[in-house]
């Protein structure tokens, strides 16, 4: 029985599974509010709280507000609340690791759809070269610093309270996600103060970049996403893990070719067992694309739940039909 289930999973069409799951989570997070679903304010994806119908708010919004407390309060017992919401965030995160990005994040799903649209139009996509890749990947940590340091500076009195949600103001999810429930009010520039002008126009610039970027580059924004950086910091603690058996790898490069995030290590690194990198969105395309038995596998608490298999690869590539064609 278990063998059958395993066989079924390992031979599954991941693309379909992922499409439906992504669609489900997209609808869930964007429209969940209509069904009075509220998972709290510690969700580890960009399910933005500016969308009033969200089923759970992105953790960065409360985090920034909590950290912006005056320091006397922040470093006192009152901050147990900060700690508990962090723990809740961690609990959410720990279960699925970065699969939150690849499966649940509405912004990630949206980018995947834009990519399909581009594919439909037949326009080729772009990639970064090595130097661009290395320098650009640091940007997400800069954003993470903005998320964490700016509120702290406000609490210290060094920065105006207007900067409280500085990252939220710059984040394209603030502009884009409310659109899906018919709220276009974020598509505006706030002229009330200079800071507000600056931040809100940044938000719109990033929104424009988001659309254009994700049109020509797969998962364009994930590359700069501070949540991804935040995930990576705690990814060692997660239960779901992406593992690689270097001995079984032939370095064919299939995994690298299907990787939306251009992670070279997935093909090149035959030393590490834990192959999850900071850019990874755990979409598992690499596992599905791997033609070697067991070379890549996804473990839930050390129990492999999805493995790369020769047979599964052949099935997904529809090899039998190809072979038939060649025969005839």
């Amino acid at each position, binding site marked *: 029985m278990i063998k059958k289930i395993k066989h079924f999973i390992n031979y599954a069409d991941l693309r379909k599974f992922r499409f439906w799951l992504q669609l489900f989570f997209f609808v869930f997070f964007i429209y969940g509010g209509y069904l009075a679903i509220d998972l709290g304010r510690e969700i580890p994806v960009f399910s933005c709280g500016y969308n009033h119908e969200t089923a759970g708010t992105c953790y960065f919004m409360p985090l920034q507000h909590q950290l912006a407390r*005056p*320091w*006397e*309060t*922040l*470093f*006192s*017992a*009152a901050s*147990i609340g900060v700690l508990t919401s962090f723990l809740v965030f961690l609990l959410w995160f720990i279960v699925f690791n970065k699969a939150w990005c690849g499966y649940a994040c509405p912004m990630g799903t949206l980018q995947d759809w834009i990519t399909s649209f581009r594919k439909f139009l037949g326009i*080729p996509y*772009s990639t970064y070269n090595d130097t661009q890749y290395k320098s650009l990947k640091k940007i997400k940590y800069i954003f993470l610093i903005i998320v964490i340091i700016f509120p702290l500076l406000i609490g*210290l*009195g060094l920065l105006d309270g207007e900067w409280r949600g500085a990252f939220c103001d710059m984040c394209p999810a603030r502009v884009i996600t409310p659109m899906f429930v018919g709220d*276009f*009010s974020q*598509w*505006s*520039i*706030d*002229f*009330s*103060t200079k800071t*507000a002008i600056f931040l*809100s*126009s940044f938000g*719109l*610039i990033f*929104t*424009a*970049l988001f*659309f*254009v*970027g994700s049109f*020509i580059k797969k998962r364009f924004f994930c590359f700069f996403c501070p949540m991804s950086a935040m995930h990576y910091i705690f990814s060692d603690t997660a239960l779901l893990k992406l593992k690689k058996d270097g001995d079984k790898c032939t370095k064919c490069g299939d995994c690298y070719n299907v990787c939306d995030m251009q992670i070279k290590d997935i093909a090149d690194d035959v030393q590490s067992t834990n192959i999850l990198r900071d850019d990874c969105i755990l979409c598992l395309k690499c596992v599905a694309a791997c033609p070697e038995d067991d070379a890549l596998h996804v473990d839930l*608490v*050390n129990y492999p739940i999805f493995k790369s298999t020769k047979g599964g690869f052949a099935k997904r590539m529809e090899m039998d039909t190809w072979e038939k064609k060649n025969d005839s």
Partner: protein
Amino acid sequence: MVDFIKRDKDDIYAKPILGFLFKNQKFIMTLKIVVAFIFFYAIYFGFTHQGKDNTFTWAVFWGIFWSLFMVVTLPTLGRVFCGICPHGFLGKYITKFGLKKKMPKWMQNQYIGVFILVIGWWGIYYMFPGIYRTPFGTAMMFLVMTILAFIIYFIYRDMSYCKYICPIGTLTRAYAKLSFTWLGSYKSACNECKTFECATACQHNLKPFTFDGRNSMTDCTLCMDCSAACEAISFKVKKPSFSLFSKFQILKAEVWTFILILAAIPISMAFHHGLGRSKVASDMIWAKTAEYFKGFIDFGSVDAVGLFAFLYAMLFTIIAATLGMYIASKILQKDYKKTFYDLGYSYAPLFILGSIAHSLESFFTRGYDRIIEGFAFGFGFGKVDIASLASRGDKWLAVFGILKWIAIIWALIILYKRMKLIDSTKLRKTLAFPFAALLVIFFLGVNSYRSYILDTYGRASRGTHGSHSSHAMKSTDSNHSKNINILSKSTKPLDTVYFSDKKPTPVSRMGHSGAHMMGTRDRSKVPSKKVWLVTDPLDDTKCVHNTIGKFFATDIDNNLVEVKLNQKSCTSISFKMPKSGYYKVYYLLETPHSINVAKYEYKRFDHSAEAIYEKEKMSAKTIQEIPFDILQLRAEDETFYSRPHSGDVLKFKVIKNGVAQSGVNISLTTQFGWQKNLKTDANGIAKIQLIQDYLPKWNKFNKRFKENFLVVATYTEDSKKYKASFSGIFTPPREAYSSYSYGFVITLIIIILLSGAIYLYRYRLQKPFKEVHFDD
């Protein structure tokens, strides 16, 4: 021995300035001599200047050595404190000429030093506070310790005093494990070494070439004698506390040092100095125990409360540590002792980082100036007066508070890493983790409890700080009353009176208009609000005094509640708002021919899960005590977050004796003077659209500006006059400051530009096919 070695990048000896500081023997020697001179001079000074004017002895011993220099260097640079310690410095020479006897077994016990420190120093400190504070006491203690040290150095070999007797020897050895420096050796050179100069040079009889392999620097005091003897000795920068992440020979005394010092210093301090200074200090268990025992024993000059605080701290800490580890060992199915000592190393950061925070804070608030003043005094510059770097209560000092959190996180990381070394299943380890971390949780709990108690009950006022602030309060109070006398006036029964949440204060006097009375910000208290009964136009409000009317207030369920009425010279009323909902305050003045009502309504909400906006419950209601009432009807889409904006239509309903009244004159006036008059319709409702008359210059614009409005309803029936007022606020609408068109245009321009740029870029990359001709 090697004369030259190619040093690694992370070797401090290879660094330009640090290398000099740690490697140059002449510099180190000079430093040691200077330190020894200051040490003995300070002792001498303590005997010659026994009065309070001797700030020098305090500055040297309690300003610099302990605790500032020691706790700051220990978890960072390591045992550099021991490296320049005058005892060790002179002890080396004494040992050379001494008897070189082997220390007896019973004395080779690290607990001796630990117990001298914990009982002999901290125990005494809590029992007789102030005994070491005098210059004489300090000098005497250090002289006794010095003589004791020198005698032991003289009799026994291998610097045994440092290892076993010195009160801070084991402490420094233990906490130095957190540091990011590491004295080791280059294997390439040591593998071929047959002479072991580093070991022979070491007065402590240690073998520096084995440090790397043992993953422990054992008793090394960083005196740097070995590095002078052989070039193969390295002094590297590593990850902080890296040695704790892998196995090494544990020393039981080190773990007990972590636990006992944690109990003796931060926990006892939190008990005795933190909680002991709160207003509920006498309710604490140690105070009660002390009170109980005072009935049987005469404590004399012993501070019984301090003693029991110390004892309870010891008891609780040891219980937390042992119990937690015992349960953890059972879960892990390992030997209790082994688990205890293996995992006990994770307690290391708790005390030392918190102590750094405390030391740095006191250095900035009072240490710095006292050290400078002390040295000036000690070296004959007379009395100087230096300003301290910061004053108590400065906001930025809270920066140091972060160290406590780092300590807790660091401890948990070490525990996690050391847990990894234990051979057990992952599930068991995960389950055992919180129990093994019980002391960490206890530490967190004590700290949280301390701030909770101090926040909730406040500090007992005593000392200079308290009296100063109360003085300041008095002066502002008198200021206020002056202003109020000018502003308040008495009213006739039918004058328009209304409630304002701002105290009428003239702009010229206070600098800014009105104190912020948005309810108290203190999170531990029930939010409250204070409103003043005022009269005259909105832009020139005056207090009302000598009111003869009645006041009513309701809670969110429309029940009458008691409120605090302040009738001094300015009538004000304050009410508590424990839950989310609408709170109302009424003022009613009834005469045979007139009824005058003032009403204030406030929507209070928090972001908690209990704050649910139920339409029925939140609807506007009147109370039967009020014969003439204005209800502001809720908007269709009203929530806790909504607030009236310019442009919104407000609906008011007038109720007379419980029935909607038509034909009532309604007038709405805004703060800037705009007014609208109309009559209520058949349902007793009047609809008024708010205009936008807040039009400041752009750079003065505030999107959260609260403009006041005042609604007055008047009605005459059978020559009886009815009047009611209702005050509220509204803010600028979103459209006043945000622009869609700009937003769309900017986004569109960027999208077009980017697409164009990408198209061009790709177009250029495409190279048209071109035939290449080669000339033959």
